[in-house]
């Protein structure tokens, strides 16, 4: 606030609201020509686009573009004269065209991410001053709202900030060892050195794997503590099994919360937020944290200082699956509805993911979760690369990442993950949802770094999505889960197989098993999907939207996940990102088609690891593709999003890759 109290300014504010539009983003080389995004890295080009063909109000307008800090938006709403954070307002004149003809480069150089703050990203709003009065008033158009900034600029949160430390955030970190006196009750604790000034901080608990050591997680401890978290890594009783490991997690969390006064002279007293706890586990400990959460759901008596609702996120690094889906009425490793995240290393030579080992298939745990689910898969990462204890990476396969490359990727994902789930920080979502090829944190390995390949899944919780087809609740190939017809072209139809995503035999050898390479479902798991293939000809697969489900205007994105099928001749025929198109059609025959590579990614090729049978190529690695529904309306598209009758996939030489065999799953509409 400058001169007037905010209240007075609000009283004097122009009454009418401005029109809200997405404006900031990046241009694309093909339709939809522009991608509106939420987050930019510092120094990344920022473009602004307008689509007068879809928005006649803007046609032939001359605009003055201001970029304002989001926290100052109320002042501008209250009548403060507009000032752009980029310097002079950008003057643009729109024509009658679409975004292709009306995209403008902003000088985003002066826009910084957060500084001296623990919050990732700084919010900015774009204001298009339509009536040239340098005030935000009714005729103007704005990218941003009171609830959320138009876009965020995100600082480097991956690189080490101070020489000789492992700190990436604004705070220096204190590391202290604590022995609580009992069996497997040793803890390595990291916290900000200035914690006395910081109030209560979320607690991140790390539970190591078998043969690992609780002092091997500096890369997480220093990283997160420097951003304002208390991190505790504890000795973990993994040798006997998963139940004892989960006991270690439950007990050590309880000990720290109940005996805080004993740690480092009481430095943490009053500074641990027991209602915001994250559990991260590695290998047997990765399954252990899942089982610990299930034990809490079942009323386990160990936790006295925290409740099940206080565990806000569970994350597993290369977890085992000893307990499976449960048996004889006993629960398996099923985390329930708490947000769940999974790390998988393609080179893992212990929890290796091979078809012959059900307890080695990490994705089972992701599939059993019922809430928000996220997954990060790294080609070339070994089992030991997820800790920093030195020694073997426990890795097999080509092009190994080792810890030097694995850890910056981990740092680049972990902090957005935690801030997104715990705080709902909107600046973090893009790091979790956009493909690594297209967007990744500053300081994380660049795309041209040899061997770096990252696949992400982001699967919304049930309340945030509407299922078109999950290939599970309706087993017939000809009908989707939402009740609509599923139609396929003559060449594609005979190849369709719907079933459990579980390789039926003990190897990844190309064998005629339609689910070869699938490791999402284990024994007793229902997780199912669709497999299909095409070769040299154009094909389609269409999902009818039933009457009553055709108004998509309340949804933001169309989302699905797909994976190339390992070792298949059609996959080997074109090693590389696989490409195809997605098309929406309304009842007036208006259609709009987007190629998935338009955004800069595709469906990643399998990691070319040998073993687990004949040939090269490891398990089928699903990744999410999320397309903004408004993108289908771009540049004069007449598609009516309130009356969409079909979602179609178009394959073949006219639509992308000439050949391919893929798994397809989780075709849904999402709200954000």
């Amino acid at each position, binding site marked *: 606030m400058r001169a007037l109290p905010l209240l007075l300014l609000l009283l004097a504010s122009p009454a009418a609201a401005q029109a809200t539009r997405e404006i900031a983003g990046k241009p694309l080389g093909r339709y939809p020509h522009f991608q509106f995004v939420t987050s930019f890295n510092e120094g990344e080009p920022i473009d602004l686009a307008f689509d007068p063909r879809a928005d006649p109000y803007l046609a032939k307008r001359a605009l003055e573009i201001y970029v304002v800090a989001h926290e100052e938006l109320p002042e501008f709403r209250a009548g403060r004269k507009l000032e752009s954070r980029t310097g002079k307002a950008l003057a643009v004149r729109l024509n009658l065209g679409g975004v292709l003809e009306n995209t403008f480069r902003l000088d985003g150089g002066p826009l910084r991410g957060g500084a001296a703050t623990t919050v990732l990203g700084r919010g900015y709003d774009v204001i298009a001053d339509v009536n040239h009065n340098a005030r935000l008033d009714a005729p103007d158009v704005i990218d941003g709202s009171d609830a959320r900034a138009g876009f965020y600029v995100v600082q480097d949160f991956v690189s080490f900030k101070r020489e000789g430390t492992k700190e990436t955030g604004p705070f220096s970190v204190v590391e202290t060892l604590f022995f609580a006196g009992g*069996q497997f009750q040793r803890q390595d604790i990291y916290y900000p050195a200035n914690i006395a000034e910081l109030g209560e901080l979320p607690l991140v608990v790390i539970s190591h*794997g078998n043969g690992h050591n609780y002092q091997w997680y500096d890369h997480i401890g220093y990283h997160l503590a420097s951003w304002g978290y208390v991190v505790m890594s504890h000795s973990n009783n993994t040798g006997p099994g998963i139940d004892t490991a989960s006991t270690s997690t439950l007990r050590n969390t309880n000990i720290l919360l109940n005996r805080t006064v004993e740690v480092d002279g009481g430095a943490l007293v009053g500074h641990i937020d027991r209602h915001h706890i994250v559990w991260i586990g590695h290998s047997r400990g990765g399954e252990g944290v899942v089982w610990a959460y299930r034990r809490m759901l079942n009323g386990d008596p160990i936790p006295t200082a925290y409740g099940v609702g206080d565990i806000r996120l569970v994350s597993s690094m290369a977890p085992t699956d000893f307990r499976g889906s449960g048996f004889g009425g006993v629960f398996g490793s099923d985390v329930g509805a708490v947000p769940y995240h999974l790390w998988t290393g393609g080179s893992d030579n212990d929890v290796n993911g091979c078809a012959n080992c*059900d307890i080695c298939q990490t994705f089972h745990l992701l599939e059993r979760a019922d809430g928000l689910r996220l997954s990060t898969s790294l080609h070339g990462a070994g089992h030991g690369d997820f800790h920093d204890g030195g020694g073997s990476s426990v890795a097999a396969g080509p092009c190994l990442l080792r810890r030097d490359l694995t850890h910056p990727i981990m740092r680049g994902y972990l902090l957005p993950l935690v801030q997104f789930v715990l705080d709902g920080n909107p600046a973090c979502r893009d790091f979790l949802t956009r493909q690594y090829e297209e967007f990744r944190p500053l300081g994380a390995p660049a795309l041209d770094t040899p061997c770096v390949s990252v696949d992400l899944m982001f699967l919304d919780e049930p309340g945030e999505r509407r299922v078109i087809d999950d290939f599970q609740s309706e087993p017939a190939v000809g009908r989707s889960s939402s009740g609509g017809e599923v139609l*396929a072209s003559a060449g594609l139809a005979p190849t369709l197989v719907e079933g459990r995503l579980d390789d039926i035999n003990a190897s990844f050898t190309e064998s005629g098993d339609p689910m070869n390479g699938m490791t999402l479902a284990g024994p007793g798991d229902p997780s199912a999907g669709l497999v299909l293939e095409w070769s040299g000809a154009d094909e389609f697969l269409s999902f009818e939207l039933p009457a009553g489900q055709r108004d998509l205007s309340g949804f933001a994105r169309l989302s699905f996940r797909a994976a190339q099928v390992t070792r298949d001749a059609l996959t080997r025929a074109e090693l590389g990102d696989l490409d195809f198109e997605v098309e929406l059609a*309304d009842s007036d025959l208006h259609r709009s088609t987007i190629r998935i590579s338009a955004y800069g990614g595709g469906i990643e090729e399998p990691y070319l690891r040998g073993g687990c049978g004949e040939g090269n190529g490891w398990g089928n690695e699903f990744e999410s593709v999320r397309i903004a529904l408004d993108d289908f309306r771009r540049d004069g598209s007449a598609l009516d999003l309130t009356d969409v009758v*079909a979602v179609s996939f178009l394959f073949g030489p006219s639509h992308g890759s000439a050949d391919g065999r893929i798994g397809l799953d989780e075709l849904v509409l999402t709200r954000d």
Partner: protein
Amino acid sequence: MKKLAVVALLALLVVGFSVGRGLASRPQQTRAPAPLSSLPDGRVELLEAVPFALDTPFVHEWRAEKPEVSAGYLLVLKVPPELARPRQTYEAVLYVGDQTAERCNYPEESGILVALVPAPLVDGHVDLDLAQTPIWFGALELPERVDAPRIARERAQALRAGIGPVKRGARFVAAPAAPAFARDRGELEATYLADLIERWSPEESDLVSGLRVR
């Protein structure tokens, strides 16, 4: 629906179409038992045995019954490295007579395994005659699932495989018959156990320093 039936609309997309095949039906896999490999394996040499006794018992979590323990042996064993190397998946369970043993270190290559085996304290001595006791690796399993009947089966199988009392290794170090006393498990770990691991498996310095945190 405004003007056209959906099916007709979709048919316009391409020349020909047909409905896909039905659900691929196949039985769900059943959980395969842990592979046995070449187990049981009795290639174990005893290098040192330190009897211990505690004032405060702890729970032996390496078998299903989870008994309380206040005495036993810390054993240093020379074993095939592959059997000693830590794994996240199933490991071969280490048996000492009628008891499961706890693996206390995690040698990647050396095959020097330090283990803790519970035994009763009788008249001030740990009541386990190591000269007459077989030590072997049994089937792959999670020790927390192993109970007394399973131990009996494993022992019978070891006997059938010709596994007899453990042999002393060439580097055997004699230990005093009187047990080492510690207040509790924590003190045992920080002193006698950490010392043994440091002496026999010096590359595991992180483990040793971690055990010594008090």
